[in-house]
């Protein structure tokens, strides 16, 4: 039972490292990510500039730290919105069934019938750009998948006798849903959250890559990746370092998800 879970260990280590970097990036960066240095345009990685500089002489390492923070922030918010609303919808539909189920799940189906990017694009164009709006748009896009996972778990739990027993104790519906049933589906929800987080990072990067949502001032990793494309030949380290940061961010959380799933077996 207590076998070492390499996925979980490495994933936790990698994620902790990334979070540490992001926190450091919030408080301190080697250079100001906005400061242009005319004496150091398009430099290769060196000890002075760990990941080199872009064509305006901005330190890429500093920008990557800030950018990872922006990406992480949006991904975190997206997953938070998706999980909270999705869990609430899934819990209600799964537990009550009947017309509550019909109404909410048909809404859910309608929402997931849109291609997710299209839906996010529409929402952004309605809401306007900005990282909070991006977060909200992606969060709404993420709701259906969580709702569906949580719904099936609650529907399964509903017929269990421990739920009937809670009803006989006179427990209120919110108490049955979130104190009695929810702890039993943590495992499933947690691995769904890790997968969702990765999708959120990629979605944010993709949206920013298309210059939707995040403004140039708070450059996220996706925006930088799109920016770096122009200089792929002259400054390949720009694209590589940015891409590497995205990969590490996803890999860490992905390994945690994989590790959690293996622990269930």
């Amino acid at each position, binding site marked *: 039972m207590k076998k070492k879970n390499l996925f979980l260990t490495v994933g936790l280590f990698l994620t902790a490292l990334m979070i540490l970097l992001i926190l450091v990036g919030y408080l301190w960066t080697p250079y100001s990510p906005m400061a242009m240095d005319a004496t150091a345009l398009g430099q290769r990685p060196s000890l002075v500039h760990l990941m080199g500089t872009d064509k305006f002489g901005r330190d890429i390492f500093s920008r990557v730290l800030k950018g990872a923070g922006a990406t992480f922030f949006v991904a975190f918010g997206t997953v938070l919105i998706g999980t909270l609303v999705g869990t609430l919808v899934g819990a209600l539909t799964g537990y009550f069934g009947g017309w509550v189920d019909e109404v909410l799940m048909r809404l859910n189906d309608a929402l997931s019938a849109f291609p997710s990017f299209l839906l996010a694009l529409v929402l952004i164009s309605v809401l306007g750009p900005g990282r909070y709006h991006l977060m909200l748009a992606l969060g709404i896009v993420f709701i259906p998948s969580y709702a569906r996972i949580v719904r099936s778990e609650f529907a399964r739990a509903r017929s*269990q*006798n*421990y739920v*009937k*027993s*809670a009803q*006989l*104790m*006179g*427990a*209120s519906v919110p*108490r049955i849903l979130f104190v*009695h049933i929810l*702890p*039993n589906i*943590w495992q499933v929800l947690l691995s769904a959250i890790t997968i969702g987080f990765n999708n959120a990072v990629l979605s944010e990067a993709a949206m920013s890559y298309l210059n939707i949502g995040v403004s140039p001032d708070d450059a996220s990793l996706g925006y930088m990746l799109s920016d770096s494309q122009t200089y792929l030949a002259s400054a390949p380290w720009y694209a590589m370092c940015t891409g590497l940061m995205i990969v590490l961010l996803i890999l860490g959380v992905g390994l945690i998800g994989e590790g959690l799933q293996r622990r269930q077996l």
Partner: protein
Amino acid sequence: MDDLVLEVKHLNSWYREVDERGRRRRHDVLFDVSFALHRGEILGLVGESGTGKTTLVKNILGLVSDHTGEIIHYTKRPQMIFQDPYSSLNPARTVGWILEEPLRIYGKYDAAERKRRVQEIVEKVGLPADCVTRRPHELSGGQRQRVSIGVALIQKPRLIIADEPVSALDVTIQRQILELMRSLRDEYALSFLFISHDLNVVYQLCDRVMVMKSGRIVEQNTVAELFAHPQEAYTKTLLAAAD
């Protein structure tokens, strides 16, 4: 008759069904069921599976809306012990938490008082004191059924409905659980409605028995009388099958 805890009068019950052609149908389950349960009495309910025993229980607990007739409760909150001790306890919580939960919901005792009462119940139902920190899957089937009885008991009920509470347990454990139920009846003057398909178990525990067939109660009598002089042909075949 001031010592009644439950009275059922002319109960008919049915389910709404939709048949394979999509038409709505009424599927009748219980027909003119009447009985009374007295304080401190263990009333057995026997019958083959599919005769409506569980439907009767659901009716008594108020979970079926489609019925006619009267169900009169003379007690508050009847409690229930389920057949399968594996699914009736929340797998994500400790035994202590599960036992304490009814008191938390009741909301009138502070934490220390709740702990004290849980401890008292743990002793009363014959569980080891350290089980409160363990989860249900770490306990045996018999221990789990003791926890279920504890959960019911901590709510100080006057009536406990037990739906095949020992049929998932092996014979020696069965005897211990039956013994526990009997001693609780003696101590608290509890009433049990004890549902079983096992006539040997009913003979060991119950005061009176009702025999159910196809949604009707075909015979009810004291255990001694019914086992010695069964009146109905159906009861005779049940008894013959049990030997």
